[in-house]
């Protein structure tokens, strides 16, 4: 079970196609899985960016940022993951909104794809905006083009599309008077916040997929709690998507950094070829 059947990499983002037929049958757009590479691993949440009920596989895009994602990045086709739990989280709310804009950065470029597909099927006009530092860092583009009416680009160096970020593209659209009925954003916290600030003056309903630290993913522990509109919510069951105009970004940022000290030391020693220091015995 959970065999890695295909794998490729585009500049630090690893596409992992995993054998998980039951999940492939029950997953919906916006949901995620919690993954353990090996028996000793941390449980980390990853969005399911595509799935195929015929082959019984799910596709994850993993951005290598630390120890756990590095361990996944080092797995080879034919290896099996120790645990893949899902689907988790509430599915995206899909309806006929009219015009939907989806913004994606880093792993979000892959993660917006199923929402784009579902929104299109529900009758929406779908515009995706994706950002990266350089043009060669985009991935999954062909599929995204097929699922959207339009795909717009933003790059830090201007090598593809607009020079800038997703929010710059959105702001330009809104200034020009393009009507947007619903926006979804997936990516790092800073990007989610900036994009939400860009849609706020225009009162565009905005959903952001929050990525707080998780443990069980079933509502049992409260590790993932976030403040939205002054209320505490558990991102793994109440979310991950929330109203971007109501999120307490500072708190989320602080909670996400809770383990930075420990994680950094281990990641650095491990990624430089060093073995993870052994302490005690199992």
């Amino acid at each position: 079970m959970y065999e890695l059947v295909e794998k490729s990499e585009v500049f630090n983002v690893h596409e992992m196609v995993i054998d998980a037929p039951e999940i492939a049958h029950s997953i919906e757009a916006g949901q995620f899985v919690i993954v353990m590479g090996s028996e000793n691993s941390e449980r980390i949440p990853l969005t399911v960016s595509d799935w195929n009920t015929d082959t019984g596989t799910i596709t994850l895009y993993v951005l290598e940022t630390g120890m756990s994602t590095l361990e996944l990045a080092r797995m080879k086709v034919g290896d099996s993951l120790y645990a893949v739990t899902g689907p988790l989280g509430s599915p995206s709310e899909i309806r006929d909104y009219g015009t939907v804009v989806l913004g994606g950065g880093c792993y979000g470029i892959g993660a917006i794809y199923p929402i784009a597909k579902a929104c299109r099927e529900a009758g929406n006009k779908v515009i995706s905006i994706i950002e990266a530092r350089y043009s060669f860092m985009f991935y999954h583009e062909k599929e995204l083009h097929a699922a959207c009416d339009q795909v717009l680009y933003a790059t830090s160096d201007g090598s593809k599309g607009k020079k800038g970020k997703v929010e710059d593209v959105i702001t330009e659209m809104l200034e020009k008077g393009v009507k947007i009925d619903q926006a979804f954003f997936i990516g790092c916290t800073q990007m989610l916040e900036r994009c939400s600030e860009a849609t706020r003056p225009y009162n565009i309903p905005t959903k952001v997929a929050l990525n707080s630290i998780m443990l069980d993913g079933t509502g049992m522990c409260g590790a993932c709690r976030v403040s939205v509109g002054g209320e505490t919510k558990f991102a793994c069951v109440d979310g991950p998507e929330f109203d971007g105009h109501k999120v307490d970004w500072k708190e989320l940022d602080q909670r996400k950094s809770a383990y930075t000290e420990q994680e950094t030391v281990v990641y650095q020693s491990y990624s430089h070829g060093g073995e993870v220091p052994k302490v005690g015995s199992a």
Partner: protein
Amino acid sequence: MELTAKERMAIERHGMAEQPPDLRNRNFEEVPYGYTPEEAVAEAQRCLSCKKMPCVSGCPVEVPIPEFIALVAEKKFAEAARVIKTKNVLPAVCGRVCPQETQCEGVCVRGKKDIKEAVAVGNLERFVADYERENNLAEVPEIKNKNGLKVAVIGSGPSGLTVAGDLIKLGYEVTIYEAFHRGGGVLVYGIPEFRLPKKIVESEISALEDLGVKIYYNSVIGRLHKVDDLFNVLGFNAVYIGVGAGLPIFLNIPGNNFNGVFSANEYLTRSNLMKSYLFPQYRTPMIIGKKVAVLGGGNVAMDSARTAIRLGAEKVTIVYRRAREQMPARAAEAHHAEEEKIEFRLLSSPVEIFGNDEGWVTGMKCQRYELGEPDESGRQRPVPIEDSFFEFDCDQVLVSIGGEANPLITKTTPDMKTNKWGYIETDDWGRTSKKLVYAGGDIVTGAATVISAMGAGRMAAKAIHEDLMKESDETVTPDWW
């Protein structure tokens, strides 16, 4: 050699040898070492074999206590274990975690004057169960007739494991769906290693697998499959829900979301299930508090506090709203916590948690309470004393003040009735309002005990068998049933 009652009365209660407090507060190994066979026999000889058997009525599942103890006195340890197992399938667990002082030992005739003089039923139960396991003497029942009926059990806590064990022996095909990557429920992710070694739970689970129980891990029912799909798509004939109590609650006070504030569920899961005390060899990180405040007075609070000490805290303080005698924790746990130099701030309750600009907890403000009029349960109600606030520094807060029902399954099974708190409604046998769906354990009663969850599983297994047999004409009930 038959002892007289007087001779029996003269024997003093045998405590268990334990790791000394200043050694054990630095390791995760079990605290009591267990009886030697000689100690067990001597303790068993203290039992007076009372005709009325108050202990049996005191036990929620009515273990034939005097009968098994008499076998211990005759050194027939494996036989004694078998006698317990007719009523309690997890004696190695229950011997360690049952609140014996309010159950069997609480009504023991020998403990009438002083509860500390009661026959050590729990210790003896633990001894015989360990003896049976360590010497591989457990009987593996032969399952003759498979009846072709399939039962799905959701959750692998004590109630789910009991249902699975009972039904597989009756010839059913049993499949357990467990949300986590390991089985055992609270026994593995909640109760720490130093109180219940995980190898005991593992051996119970592998015994079930040997009998043919299938366990699917990483399977969150309500998301992966809905209860209806278990019938319609996967072809199960009955479904048992034993998913436990679930959601943690936080106090409704400012400062709950500072870094360093944990639910006990999170803290204990990181430590027990994810083994973060072995970070980074095990990859799940943990925040090691120096000054730790634990909110609550139950077993969960004691386990959190004692874990914090072992992880290296300099000072651990339990903050509890009521008095020492009102703490719901097992007596042994509170006693062990005190020995491990955990401080108790009784009759106090937090009103605010403080933090710094970086979002880390720095301390808390509490209010003092006094005992007032008794409430419905007869316990004196704690009432706040005006203007009696005090503050103290802490860099970690562990919240263990109880839980709520997890709605994952009930929300996706709208035709099954729940009560106003979201727990599943059942009859005395665990039948829910939905046909051929049964439930038991903490998801029905709210947070309770291992033995009551197990007892509920027993009853539900009987109901499932009865109901399914009514539907099919074949009867395969063996005589031990």
